[in-house]
């Protein structure tokens, strides 16, 4: 059992559902919050899209890429492992973490409202980044 890629695949799978859910809800009226307050504020704010493209679509592309890399690693040939999937996961999740931190900052300091679905996504990105082995520091495990 390859623990790291399996964990990353599971987390990115949850992220895919989260991003798909937000993409569907975006054009369906007010978005309810259950834990936090202000989902509609955040998801209908001017920060919720870049050049007209909803951030949830970027999130979906991100999680799909991470998930695909993790699955490739799970099915990797242990006698001749390929290293690029973990490299992609590490650098992409690092970039995702920076963007997530900026988005959490916008929620906290500009919008003063929090969206639980966005916070879930930020948490997933953080755990994926921490789970992915740093290719620069040590030899990549299988």
């Amino acid at each position: 059992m390859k623990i790291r890629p399996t964990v990353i695949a599971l987390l990115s799978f949850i992220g895919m559902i989260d991003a798909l859910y937000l993409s569907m809800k975006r054009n369906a009226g007010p978005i309810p919050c259950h834990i936090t307050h202000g989902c509609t504020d955040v998801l209908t704010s001017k920060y919720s899209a870049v050049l007209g493209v909803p951030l949830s679509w970027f999130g979906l592309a991100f999680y799909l890429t991470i998930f695909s890399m993790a699955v490739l690693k799970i099915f990797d040939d242990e006698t001749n492992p390929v290293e690029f999937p973990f490299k992609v996961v590490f650098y992409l999740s690092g970039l995702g973490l920076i963007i997530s931190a900026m988005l959490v900052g916008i929620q906290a300091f500009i919008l003063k409202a929090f969206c639980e679905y966005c916070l879930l996504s930020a948490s997933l990105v953080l755990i994926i980044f921490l789970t992915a082995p740093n290719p620069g520091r040590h030899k990549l495990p299988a």
Partner: protein
Amino acid sequence: MKNMSKATKPVIVIVLAIAVAAGAAVFLARQPDEAAKTSETAGTLDTKIVGGHFRGPENAEVTLVEFGDYQCPSCGAYHPFVKEILNRYPTKVRLEFHHFPLITIHPNSMAASKAAEAAGQQGHYWEMHDALFEYQAQWSERPDPKPVFAALANRIGINGAILLQDMENPALQQRILKDVEQGDKATIQAVPTFFIKGQQVHIKASIDDFVQVIEANLHK
């Protein structure tokens, strides 16, 4: 054959995962939600606010101030409740509508506000306001929504060609931007945002919650 099978397995897993994730998201999105509230960030409105369009009697006890965006799905979802409130309280409540087009996420919202203002030039602002919300799905995602605006204008009994001409009038955009400026001063971050007596009110997208908020303000 063995190699092909090895390469195919991850692809099958990825495709299956996409299908399952899509199914799960559709299932969750279709669950009946507790009605979401309008913008929940605290805000107050300068009572000397100017402009806006009024619907209802001038001496109404309660003026419901709305900052809205014609392309915003939430505004479209709230529209029937606002209309219902005006029908239920014809002498006690009036609506004051201000444009707040979020152009970065709703590229057709400014054009829609202009269409409403242009209809106002022909004396039919509120008819166009209703039509824009009621037929939102027909124009909101179009690269060029103008033909739909012209068709809606004809539908409400005004001249569509003149409406399109009037939309080019820079004075209309100035009026809309004045509303946006006031909304920015009130630190509005999302739409729709409602105010009563200068205070932001948080209303769920349900007629019961609207009635509760209006009743509470009628008896203040």
